[in-house]
């Protein structure tokens, strides 16, 4: 059970699942196209290409899973960097103080919260955009993001939201970029 839940939390598992799903869809679609074209002509060739690509992808995913269980792959740059870091440390200079390859991650629960809320706000922006227009939707999005995700005071969010929404809407109108102005206002008018 614990192994299963650990697997469900691993990004590798989800990424490989995504790749496998894409591969299976391609494989199925390829076979369908070949059958529909009765195995000949350009449509069948399209089917062969898609099906083969799906098959190759499935094989590559299997190889990648097998590789992950045996060793941690390193890029050329990482291998050279390890040698340089080892040299620096041998010379008595602390590299860690100056350089980290990755910033420490935020706690998983906090990360999940931030991602979920950002996703929800993006969807809300998309839904509201055609109705209330670019300037207002953006102002609301930024204000909500700054208050909820970045945890600033509400008035900071309000001022920043209005400023950013207004500035971007103004910038786009100057450059001549057409953005939705909001169907709701036309309906009310």
């Amino acid at each position: 059970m614990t192994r299963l839940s650990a697997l469900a939390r691993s990004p590798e598992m989800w990424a490989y699942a995504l790749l496998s799903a894409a591969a299976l869809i391609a494989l199925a679609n390829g076979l369908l196209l070949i059958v529909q074209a009765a195995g000949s002509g350009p449509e069948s060739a399209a089917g062969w290409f898609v099906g083969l690509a799906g098959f190759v992808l499935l094989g590559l995913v299997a190889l990648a899973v097998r590789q992950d269980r045996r060793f941690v792959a390193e890029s050329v740059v990482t291998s050279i960097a390890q040698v340089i870091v080892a040299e620096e440390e041998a010379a008595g200079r602390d590299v860690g103080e100056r350089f980290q390859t990755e910033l420490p991650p935020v706690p998983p629960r906090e990360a999940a919260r931030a991602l979920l809320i950002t996703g929800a706000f993006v969807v809300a922006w998309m839904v509201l955009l055609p109705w209330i227009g670019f300037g207002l939707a953006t102002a609301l999005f930024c204000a909500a993001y700054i208050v909820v995700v970045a945890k600033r005071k509400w008035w900071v969010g309000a001022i920043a939201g209005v400023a950013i929404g207004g500035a971007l809407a103004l910038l786009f109108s100057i450059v001549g970029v057409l953005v939705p102005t909001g169907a709701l206002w036309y309906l009310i008018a």
Partner: protein
Amino acid sequence: MTPDVILAGFGEILTLERLAIAFLGCFAGTFFGVLPGLGPVTAIAVLFPITTYLDPVSGILMLAAVYYGGMYGGSTTAILLNIPGEVSSLPAALEGYPLTKRGRAGAALATAAVSSFVAGVVGTIGVMIIGPTIARVALAFGPPEQFGLILFALTAISGLVAGSLVKGLAMAVLGILLSIVGYDAISGAQVMTFGSWTLAQGFSVVPVMIGLFGIGEILKTLVQRNADVVVAPVGSLLPTREERRAAVGPTARGTLQGFFLGLIPGMLPSITSFLNYSWERRRAERRGDSQFGKGAIQGIAGPEAANNGAAMGGFVPLFSLGIPTGPSMALILAALLVYGLVPGPMLFTQEAEFTAGVLASFLIANVILLVLNLPLVGLWAKIARVPFSIMGPIVIVCCLVGSLLERNSMFDVGVCAAFGFIALLLDRAKLPLAPLVMGFILGPSFQETMRQSFTMSPTFFVERPIFIAFALAAAATVAFAVVRAVRTARMQRASRDGALVRH
């Protein structure tokens, strides 16, 4: 490329409007480049949709300016702020930081700017000389040769950028699959559309790219702890006589190494700059009295030159063969397609005037960056400290609007957002994005040339010598990656066994 064509190119660029566009591009690119976590690719992805409102020459001029600005901004923050991040910023952390501590940050920045400028100018001249020659050869390429070239490009980038060739190739194939969703170009059959009209139009390049490199980068920053940004005093911008003398050799070597390595797909500017650093380091050690690790100006000049040299080198295969060497070039290729230009040998023959204008614009952008950015170092340092909570939502909104503009479709906005989250997932799973993008951009021509080749002759792969050469090069890349993987696995097993014995 004849001198009068090049002069005509300059004539086209040196107008007030175009200079203003180059200036804006440099400014906007540096702006994105100095923001922690964002780089030149993000800068291009976010600003690309706006450039489609310009004419082709101005559009490419702006993108080139944004690209250079983004790279310049990245090195500015790497030297001044010591923000940790990618492995490739190790040279700046090892050499720039000690210089900053000694109050020589200004000299380091000036050296970086001048080295980049030299590499940019020499690289542009290199493109003018080498580009047309390769283009003439490429004119003789038929579908089998094109197919071989794309095959090589995809394996090269998969083997070089990622640690694991298998993962790189898997991402490239995923990119190809994504690119062929919609109507099949040859037969008109619907591929992976599930009967949906929206999917039948296929995934557009713009929202996918903006999602992967714009929203994806923002989400990545969101799940990392904020770096403590401490801005060091810049000090005098003028390098001392010794520093100037020490920087000349590395700049020259870095420019040449960067340019020629940059011609190879997968040799991203960040990789060449890192390779140059390790070579310069070895060289200094061999000659004795190495200052590397203690703030060597050579370790700033060489990698910076290699970085810009490679950025220029990448334009040669892009303009003459239509093959991008990495994500930035892939985005510029996408831009060319949006402007209705087909990258490939025709750019140096039929569209020579356009290309001359573009190359002239590279030189102008380099000059503008040199004269504009050094006096503005203080401003860039301040921008780098703008909290992410303000910059994050602005960049997200710009990305979403950018994806909406091309086809005015909310489906594209959804695609952009979804690919942002997919980019985060792939990054967490250590699956590289560069091969995915290359597969996505090159996918349609990969499929077409492959099918055309088989139609021409079912045994084309043993009949066409150029195809065989490319296939052998691809096989060599695969062999190199396999040998490296076996060696890494053996070393890791040995160190694991060693640890067990000690216990």
